[in-house]
């Protein structure tokens, strides 16, 4: 039996949870667990991704991703379902909870995988921050898998999951910390690791006052924004937008890099993007070698034209 941890954000299933559900359902008979408040009818939707039943721990104290409380609930559901494989998303919450779950269940842990096991039990993950891939050979032992965002496509079919309320007796110590404040820094954009399209800016944009050009294009495309390391280091953009070897690794369908030269560390973080567009006024920028489409030109002239063309396309 497979158990999928379906993460909620503001009462809604995250896109990564649908991916994990669809992935888990491919591995075998599959149930899910959801923690905290869920919108009416939300958890039932997992049925369309192959989940038969969802254990719901509807405890309002689970409003933040407490590693001990989440671990306790996930392990209880695993026991109740007789699950030998547990699938989580490789998100901030998944990364925090999965190692505890694996240790508690004495299970092998495969963090950040990007594929289903093949016929010989090989399962792939990205290593060296995107510079290479590695295969694990999984056996029949108990295991915990975290699935990289944007690695497995969740396709909805028919079906509604049944809900079983699970009551867990939490203790004070299960809540690792006290949340003092939360601040939304997303600017209304989808989280970067989950974004299908990402528009990213580098030093070529010359200053934070020019970021409107990147944002305009991102808004026209419904994309998230990102940046290169120097831009985050000087504080033009927040740290959580920095993609690359010491930032985050992303895997969007389309990555548009503006004014980024393409140092090896930056490429590592983005080279799994399906299509890469590079806009740079330096024809020798190394990024062009890793790009599918390129424009050698001044971002200040090129970007407004592209944004305008996107708007035209979207309104047609």
């Amino acid at each position, binding site marked *: 039996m497979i158990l999928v941890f379906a993460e909620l954000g503001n009462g809604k299933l995250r896109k990564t949870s649908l991916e994990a559900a669809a992935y888990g359902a491919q591995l075998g008979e599959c149930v899910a667990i959801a923690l905290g408040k869920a919108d009416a009818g939300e958890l039932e939707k997992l049925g369309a991704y192959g989940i038969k039943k969802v254990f719901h721990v509807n405890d309002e104290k689970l409003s933040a991703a407490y590693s001990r409380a989440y671990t306790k609930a996930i392990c209880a559901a695993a026991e109740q379902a007789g699950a030998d494989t547990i699938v989580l998303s490789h998100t901030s919450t998944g990364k925090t909870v999965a190692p505890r779950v694996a240790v508690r269940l004495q299970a092998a842990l495969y963090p950040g995988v990007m594929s289903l096991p093949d016929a010989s039990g090989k399962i792939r993950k990205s290593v060296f921050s995107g510079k290479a891939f590695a295969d694990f050979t999984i056996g029949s032992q108990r295991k915990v898998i975290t699935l990289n965002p944007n690695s497995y496509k969740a396709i909805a079919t028919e079906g509604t999951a049944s809900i079983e309320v699970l009551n867990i007796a939490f203790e004070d110590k299960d809540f690792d910390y006290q949340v003092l404040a939360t601040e939304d820094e997303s600017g209304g954009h989808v989280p970067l690791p989950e974004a299908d399209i990402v528009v990213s800016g580098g030093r070529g944009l010359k200053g934070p006052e020019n970021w409107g050009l990147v944002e305009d294009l991102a808004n026209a495309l419904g994309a998230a924004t990102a940046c290169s390391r120097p831009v985050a280091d000087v504080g033009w953009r927040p740290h959580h937008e920095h993609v690359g070897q010491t930032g985050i690794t992303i895997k969007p369908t389309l990555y548009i890099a503006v004014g980024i030269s393409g140092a090896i560390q930056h490429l590592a973080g983005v080279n799994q993007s399906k299509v890469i567009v*590079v806009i740079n006024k330096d024809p020798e920028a190394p990024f062009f070698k890793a790009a599918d*489409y390129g424009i050698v030109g001044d971002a200040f002239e090129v970007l407004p034209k592209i944004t305008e063309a996107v708007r035209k396309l979207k309104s047609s």
Partner: protein
Amino acid sequence: MKILVCISKVPDTTTKITFTDNNTRFNESGVQFIINPYDEWYALVRALELKETLGGTVTVINMGKADNEQIIRKALALGADDAIRIDGEPLDAFQVASGIAAAAKGENYDIILTGKETIDYNGGVTGGMIAELLDLPYVSLASKLDVDGTNLKIEREIEGMKETVLVAMPCVISAQKGMAEARIPNMRGILASKTKPVKIIPAAVNETQSKMTAFILPPEKGNVKLIPAEEAEKLVDLLHNEAKVI
């Protein structure tokens, strides 16, 4: 304040990655190794800053063979007081976490710090495993860390959100960008590092649970299709009709 900082040895970020032994091993020849940036720039430097303002000790711990001495001495040169090396080749996170948890047990560290992940195998799970093995609270992805009495006040930057939390010590924290600024060891630190104690202990667990068995390099990209800047709008047409991504 007694702080344990877990450090890992990784190839320098500029390394061109290649493999050997029929793609079953990372090719270390000619590779410059460094302390994992998240462990050094953020976790270790913040630990040293706390020691400088509040007093106490900073111990670094690493799992590896004798040639890891070089990165351990670098951590000592930056200002760590002493070091522990768990003797053995680290093959998975559970082995490393078990060794660290065994070494930390009964030592009453107030804070155990790790980087958010290593830049080689990108698991990001060692901190959580240590927390579970020692039954401690775990706060991941901390971008700011301050001591507040017997608690730590921490900011976490997670998917488009900033969370400010208060956690009681002892605890395990994973560090990311923002927590501190990278430092360069000075000459006095380098000289002092040569005589600082490095304790060598055996690995706690020898078998691995999840060993990587083969490595693959990503396929090379074909030639880039260049669009003249004056016809930039054509890009949108290509992305829509040819690449079909918008």
